[in-house]
């Protein structure tokens, strides 16, 4: 038997892990909040315009290096545009891509996964087939092809990633739904005469939501990285929009002699993704979804 000795709220498995977990979680939230703040109000605070070029002031190093210039905290890029302003503007693009992709892919994946997991049989066969097919499609290549064929643009990148990255949502939603479906409370709701939408939305969804939240953070991080990779290859966000991946791509010609042009956006990208992953990890610990990959 496994009844707890007393009535108490479920607690994390051991004290140590929860402390680390919460510290990471807090750091993650701080990072994401900071980037979000930068995305929303950053360009109002940074006096420079991310698009204005100043050929006289090209490739000025950031403030901690010799030869830096007062007005440009993080220096300037190869066209003399203020790097801080571009970085801050890039945050907006990254977050926008991350969030929109998660929304699109989440809608597709969760719908498919929940339906397949709940109804089983033919429906599930179809969902499984869709997942397998999706998994066997090489994402980067197809995303590149779509963007390459239809012309680059922010909206198209979001749509493409959203349509491609739903697999993990579907897999997790399906697996957890299958577990939850076998719980007696679902049977009980069925026996109580509850309608199908009620069962799916009120009984199943809330109980798989924690797992899905973790997936959402993973997918968001992945989408941001993928956009950066596409932009790096020149088929993502079109210039002069300062996507971080594009900033690295544009800066790599200068990386030998002005290394900060790739260091700054690279670190920013890594820190944001790290922050999102930390949030995901924290969620996983908090919600006890450790078994998820």
């Amino acid at each position, binding site marked *: 038997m496994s009844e707890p000795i007393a009535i108490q709220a479920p607690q994390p498995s051991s004290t140590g892990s929860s402390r680390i977990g919460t510290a990471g979680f807090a750091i993650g939230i701080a990072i994401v909040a900071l980037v979000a703040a930068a995305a929303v109000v950053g360009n109002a605070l940074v006096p420079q315009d991310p698009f204005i070029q100043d050929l006289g002031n090209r490739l000025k190093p950031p403030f901690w290096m010799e030869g830096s210039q007062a007005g440009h905290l993080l220096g300037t890029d190869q066209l003399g545009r203020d790097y801080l302003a571009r970085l801050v503007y890039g945050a907006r693009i990254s977050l926008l891509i991350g969030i929109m992709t998660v929304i699109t892919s989440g809608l597709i994946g969760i719908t498919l996964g929940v339906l397949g997991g709940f109804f089983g049989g033919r429906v599930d066969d179809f969902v499984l087939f869709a997942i397998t097919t999706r998994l*066997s499609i090489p*994402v*980067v*290549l197809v995303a590149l092809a779509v963007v390459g064929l239809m012309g680059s643009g922010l909206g198209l990148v979001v749509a493409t990633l959203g349509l491609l990255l739903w697999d993990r949502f579907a897999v997790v939603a399906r697996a957890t739904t299958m577990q939850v479906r076998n719980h007696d409370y679902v049977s009980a709701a069925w026996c109580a005469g509850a309608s199908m939408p009620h069962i799916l939305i009120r009984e199943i969804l809330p109980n798989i939501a924690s797992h899905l939240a973790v997936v959402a953070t993973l997918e968001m991080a992945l989408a941001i990285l993928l956009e950066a*990779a596409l932009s790096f290859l020149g088929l993502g966000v079109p210039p002069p929009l300062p996507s971080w991946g594009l900033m690295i791509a544009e800066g790599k010609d200068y990386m030998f002699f002005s290394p900060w042009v790739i260091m700054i956006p*690279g670190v920013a990208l890594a820190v944001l993704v790290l922050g999102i*992953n*930390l949030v995901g990890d924290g969620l996983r610990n908090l919600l006890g979804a450790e078994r998820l990959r």
Partner: protein
Amino acid sequence: MLRLIARRLAIGVLVALTVMTLAFLLTRLSGDLAVSIAGPSATQADVEIVRKAYGLDRPLYVQFFAWTGRAMVGDFGQSYFFKDSVANLIQKRLPITVTLGLVGLSLALVISIPLGILAALRENTWVDRGVTLFTMVGQAVPSFWLALILMIVLGLQLGILPISGTGTWQHFVMPGIVLAFTAIPALTRLTRSGMIEAMASDYIRTARAKGLSRARIVFKHALRNAAIPVVSIAAVQLGFMLGGSIVIETVFALHGVGYLGWESIAKNDFPVVQAVVLVLAVFYIGLTLLADILNALLDPRLRTG
């Protein structure tokens, strides 16, 4: 058993067919293929010539069936850009990508399994935290960026590794490391959680109650069980690596299928794009099947009823 494998194969073929259809439709996204092939300086007459020459004047379904039919027997047509048969091209370039994938996977396994075990055994200590942080950072670092940094540090400043190309085994080290980095976080975490789960399991308690030595408990009893998912995921991971090596191949000038795909996209070389998508998909399907079989071999619960 044979029936099940046959069933899986049938599903695999079905998936491949679907991917084929999607790949075909994908390349029609741009609208009029003939206009793209003819290039920007072509006249309307040129476009018409191209349309005829490439058979693009036939109804879509005819083109589709013609292509599928030939693709089934390994004939993917002629590359517009390379003026060579696509099958030839892929055959020449696949070994590079596969080598890269295998190097990446081996590196990933060699690094992630010990790390995962270490973290699991020292759960919640600074070692574990360090490993977790490492995997998280590894997950967060964009691979193209890591590639550039490695190139500068290992190739340029230290000068210990060749920078690009495929001449020797050393050429595969840097791309292998970058590629491994894409798989290490997942594999490490999987090993770690598998080990933690195994170490907390009833049968490990039994093993301890039997008075076995710690090494035997960890490396025989726990690892064997923790390794089962890792090993089977590894095959699938390889599939992802093959599909995800485009950026790495581009940066390191490895002329593998990933780069071929990217080049073909840039050059509107549709027969190659279609074929590369299809080949990567088939690879992935084959590897998942392999993963299932591996899994069954490793896990006695799946091997016998």
